[in-house]
């Protein structure tokens, strides 16, 4: 029986180190002109330091550690405007879970700039093309809809992309298309499970803990399995899709389309 939840990741982990370094080079390579951010690069950089010192301990380096809040992607339970954000930082939130911060005006402006810039002080300028062409590519030549679902159309086996434009940065979308192996979130890894009843379940992992795993199987059924009932549980470390063969202009169009997907408005 192979239940790879005990020590399977040592070698995988070693690989990630190299991968992470590669990615940082990749990112730098993509960093071009800062573009026309409404915030100055100086403010964003200053805000990056404030964020690291005052915010990152609880919100995490990626800003997504508090349930319901994703600072980098601009998801807040209540905040809309920058003034809302400023007031919240000053007075605290979450019934005392977040304390108020007495920041100087330039620190406050900086941290808001940093949050609004998607935590990206380098201002990565990803080429964004025509959404209409992008939609056609997404539904046709790109073969995206073979696995992905958008606004109620398409299979549920791969992650639903209906709001992907609200939760991912352009750089992240580009990386997913060009180099999915390095971009795949670990939770989304494909799994292959064989139960004691000799049933084979292939699907995508939704959640896992020490004793159980939750998946959506190839028939789009939500399955929760006890690991003690399994004969084998394999987690693939390669994504189920290959790097796209679309041209760079076509990739830009697809990104343009994906950025329009912002969920139910």
């Amino acid at each position, binding site marked *: 029986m192979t239940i790879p939840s005990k020590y399977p990741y040592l070698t995988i982990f070693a690989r990630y*180190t190299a991968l992470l370094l590669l990615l940082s080079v990749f990112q730098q390579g993509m960093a071009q002109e800062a573009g026309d951010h409404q915030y100055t690069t100086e403010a964003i950089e200053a805000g990056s330091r404030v964020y690291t010192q005052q915010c990152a301990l*609880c919100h995490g380096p990626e800003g997504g*550690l508090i349930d319901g809040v994703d600072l980098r992607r601009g998801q807040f339970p209540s905040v809309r405007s920058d003034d809302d954000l400023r007031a919240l930082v000053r007075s605290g939130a979450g019934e005392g*879970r977040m304390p108020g911060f007495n920041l100087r005006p330039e620190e406050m402006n900086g941290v808001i700039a940093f949050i609004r810039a998607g935590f990206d002080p380098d201002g990565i300028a990803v080429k964004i093309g025509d959404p209409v062409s992008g939609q056609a590519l997404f539904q046709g030549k790109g073969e995206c809809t073979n696995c992905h679902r958008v606004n109620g159309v398409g299979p549920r086996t791969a992650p639903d992309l209906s709001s992907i434009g609200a939760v991912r940065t352009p750089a992240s979308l580009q990386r997913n298309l060009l180099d999915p192996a*390095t971009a795949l*979130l670990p939770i989304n890894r494909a799994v292959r499970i064989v139960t004691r009843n000799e049933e084979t379940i292939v699907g995508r992992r939704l959640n896992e803990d020490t004793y159980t795993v939750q998946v959506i199987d190839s028939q789009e059924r939500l399955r929760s399995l006890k690991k003690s009932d399994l004969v084998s549980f394999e987690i693939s470390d390669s994504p189920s899709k290959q790097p796209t063969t679309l041209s760079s202009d076509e990739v830009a169009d697809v990104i343009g389309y994906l950025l329009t997907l912002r969920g139910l408005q």
Partner: protein
Amino acid sequence: MKTLKSVWLTLFTAATLSAALNVAAQVSYERILNAADEPENWLTYNGGYSSQRYSQLDQITPANVNQLQLQWTLQNQVFGAWQSNPIIVDGIMYVTERPNSVMAVDAITGRVFWKYRHVPADGARICCGANNRGVAVLGDRVFMGTLDARLVALDRINGQPLWNVEVGDVDQAYSVTMAPLVVKDKVIVGVGGGEYGIRGYVAAYYVDSGEQAWKTYTIPAPGEPNHDSWEGDDWQHGGAPVWITGSFDAELNLTYWGVGNPGPDWNAGQRPGDNLYSDSVIALDADSGELKWFFQFTPNDGYDYDSVQVPVLADIVWRGTPSKVMMWANRNGYFYVLDRVTGKFLVGKPYVKVNWSSGLDANGRPIPTPQPEGMPTYPGNQGGTNWYPPSYSPRTGLFYFSAWQDYATIYRAEETVFEPGRAFLGGGFSVLAPAPDAPTIGIGRTNPINNWTNEVGHASLKAMDPQTGEAVWSYDQFDVSDSGMLTTGSDLLFTGGREGYFHAIDARTGELLWNVNLGGQIVMAPVTYMVDGVQYVSVISGHAMSTFALRGN
């Protein structure tokens, strides 16, 4: 009816008179000293001065543990991690709630007798959550430290405040989050604020008046020994907080305290020198506070490797010689055994992957191997372990604790100017993740979906043999764990984890015997006690404390 009432009143009056003379019901120093002999109670944060978190109770056994049944639940009324450790005295439980409330609870039913609320001053600054880890008791009093760096004494029977004194300057970000330690006629606390450039200390107060008896800084002033481990005025804001309850050896009259990180946290180059006594254990005379010895785990720390773990004391035969030892799984990734009479290093070995150091020399001093900029450091910022209380079972001779395995951080150092009361961190860090946008682990768990997965780190409960310094067995979990440990006289080991499972494990073999999903992160240790012949086990998960006993009770 009238007649009955008057009889009842007479009885009550008589009982009141005798209560005043009822010395046996008081929690005397002698009772705390011999806490191991009354396992029906849980008299200190760590279950006794040795901090073994071992109870002789053995009604619940490996054979019947699967008959455990929920007896009661107490819901917290506030959000945030509930890190409080309850104290149990003769059927009454004292437990704190965020930010600084104390409740007296019936240990059989979970119903609350009284609740005292202290509202911390607005200026209170806590880096990592409005935590309070519990109270201490002595006589008819309960003692609590507060987020605004005060120490409060309450009447144990009615919850009324008796005195309330300042421990530190709240405007300079001093705070108290630990449960106090009572020794003889004094109540002792340390201060938090290691992320704000405080100068740490441990201070003792007379239990009767709240008057300060002694105060010992964790950073020596000019003219004091080891001051030269700092340069310039770095010592004035060098951190070295003490935010976890210490231990006490009555025979040696020494209290032991783990000292936290130097500041700024991540820029070691900004504060050259060993930065004593940051990341050390210090032995202080219980009566005078005088420093008797110290042992530094991580000199000139640039990784936030607080040594705020619980000093676990045991008298064992160590490699053939009867020894008074101290066992310590440190945040820096090494497990240590020290001679607690002198502070001499006996053995130390890594229990997780360590790459900031290539090993320890003959005196236990680490050989530093700092990683190049941008490369991951093992263990990561939250450490190989942290403040969560371990356990030592004198029956198995093993030391148990929660480790974080395969967890690494990339640090970034930055020159930072100190300003009183403001964060003084010296850079930042990011957790090594398998993909650039992947979620990572933080201080607590706030998401029911583990979308960061074990690829960024996972829990490994380790059973360490102090003779060898190596793990005899380990028990892994998918998420990380901030749970402490409890061992019992029937060789059960109780612990939790961020996933919310409460586990009973065979303390000898590491075999899982029973578990239940309580649904919220377990970020403190379980405790056990006995009332009316029934053994209970209590654990806090999420916003609820759940108490179990064998079916039929």
